[in-house]
């Protein structure tokens, strides 16, 4: 699905990623955890194609294409989806209107015909149920006046509508109460299949009680320094990140 090799990146002259390696196969859920400033959000931003970052070394292959050569929208056309840590409010642009444009541009890139209005609306009704999103929210302006929980549910609703191959969830649990967390996680689990994959970036283990990862990676100082199963997440929750830091320095 995606393979990241020796990725180095900097922003404003400061090196953030220092040789990151990660391989994700179809059907897998990977969690990336790590202390503040380790480079978690940088990784998400680079995968989605934010232009502020300078890639100094390394490569990323996604579905056989050189991801770093593609524009943000081309990545989306290939099936990459980023759930934003801070979803943007866009007054005056309705959720459904923009999603319909997005779906049609993705279909157009694949050489498919545009979706019919009827099929589209049926899809909106079906997918909004997955995250228990009120259909009135679906037709309102994108994220405008949404609560923190509604914004995150809207991200997963969009993910459901776009049906990506690889979803990167950037701190999707931040700012969520326990009920919203459960709904968001249920949405992600419902969308999981043998053909897609998910990268969950999180600070806390809490989300991983609901979205159970196949692999847990610890990102520290721009590199993945430890990989394990979900037990690793529990250990991190219990002991914090200091032992990782020590281990890394010793190593």
């Amino acid at each position, binding site marked *: 699905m995606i393979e990241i090799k020796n990725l180095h990146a900097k922003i404003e002259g400061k090196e953030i990623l220092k040789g990151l390696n990660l391989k994700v196969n179809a059907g897998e859920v990977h969690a990336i955890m790590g202390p503040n400033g380790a480079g978690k959000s940088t990784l998400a931003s680079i995968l989605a194609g934010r232009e502020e970052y300078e890639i100094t070394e390394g490569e990323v292959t996604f579905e056989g294409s050189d991801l770093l050569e593609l524009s*943000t929208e081309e990545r*989306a*056309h290939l099936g990459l989806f980023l759930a934003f840590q801070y979803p943007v409010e866009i007054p005056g*642009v309705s959720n459904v209107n923009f999603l319909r*444009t997005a779906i049609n*541009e993705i279909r157009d890139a694949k050489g498919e015909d545009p979706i019919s209005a009827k099929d589209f609306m049926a899809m909106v009704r079906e997918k909004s149920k997955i995250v228990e999103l009120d259909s009135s929210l679906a037709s309102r302006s994108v994220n405008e006046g949404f609560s923190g929980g509604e914004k995150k549910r809207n991200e997963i609703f969009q993910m459901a509508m776009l049906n990506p191959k690889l979803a990167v969830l950037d701190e999707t649990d931040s700012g969520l109460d326990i009920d919203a967390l459960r709904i968001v996680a249920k949405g992600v689990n419902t969308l999981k299949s043998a053909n897609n994959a998910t990268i969950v970036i999180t600070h806390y283990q809490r989300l991983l009680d609901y979205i159970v990862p196949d692999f847990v990676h610890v990102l520290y100082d721009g590199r993945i320094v430890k990989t394990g199963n979900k037990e690793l997440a529990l250990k991190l929750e219990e002991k914090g990140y200091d032992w990782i830091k020590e281990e890394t320095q010793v190593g």
Partner: protein
Amino acid sequence: MEDVLTQTKFDILRTRLTQTVLPLTEKAKEKAQALLEYSDFPTRRNEAWKYTNVNGLNKLLLDDSGSKSTELSIISKNAQRVHVVNGHIAKDQTALPGVKTSWNLLPELASEEPFDALNLLYCTAAIELNFDDVENKTIELVFENTCNSAISPRLFINCKKGAKGTVILNFQGAQDNASFINVSTYVEVEENANLSIHKIQKNGTNAFDLQREYVNQADNSTFTMNTFPLSGRMTRNDLIINVNGNNCETFMNGAYTLKGKSHCDNHTTVDHKVAHCYSKELYKGVIDDRATNVFNGKVFVRKDAQKINAFQSNANILLSDTGTVNSKPELEIYADDVKCSHGSTTGQLDEEAVFYLRSRGLSEKSAKELLVKAFLGEVLEEVEHDDVRSYVEEQIELHFLA
């Protein structure tokens, strides 16, 4: 007084214009001539024209050359229509109720504006519209400009006591038409009347379009002016509304889309002379390439005009690094029990929003288009006439295709 020997820019312009064939009283003619003789083109020193330079008028040929057909767009199929072609009322039209296209004598000049005097002396069509019942009919005046001509329509719109009316002023120019369009519109909104004017300025890319609306509102009247400068080399609109009556409502909306080297200047004045009135103004636009935009909105609240609610807002989005906006909202309040606000913003499209939309698969172009449509949508929501709204929406889409 000694003769002034130097030739003014107005003198030069006048040598290329044809005197009006419409009847004018000697007094009217003299007054207009006197004003023009002692005026010259406005310069930067003139505050109201600080950012708008009309010297290019004297480079226009104005010889009826360059005939090219327009892709004429009629805005409202259900409206009664009057066609004005290259400034002159088309001959083979059936008379419409409430529309007078020639009358005995043009009234004399009511303003101190040289371009209004020019309009009177070189008037090419005088049209009077009268609304006298509550039915709210729509009259569309279609100004089709196919040649490089001097076009001076003079319009009188009267909405009588208790009547309702809608006027569409639809200016359509051939693609690179280079006309000089100079329009004066006098509007009377009588007691309890409700009048809406929608003005579409889709001029040729080399056309100069200078327009003035002088509006008087009587007690309990409602007046709406929606202005859509869509294309043209230079567009200047002066909207002057005297709210002379109590309990009036006044709405002014504008949306503009500028690109290339076009220049657009909207000057508005609302003069609240008496109490208990409401006015609301919203002008928004996008500026691309090397285009320049000027907005100047004045709201006066006179000493005895208590309990006035007046709101004004102008917002601009620059789509290029080379576009320019000069925006000046002005409030002058002499009463002490009023609620007024004004504001002006100029910025770029929200880059975060563009990125968000692109990350969902929208191309950069469609992301920007969607955001611009949403931005201008706030103005279009204010437009009650469905035909006008959908026409302008369509034009905004075409603006992005080109």
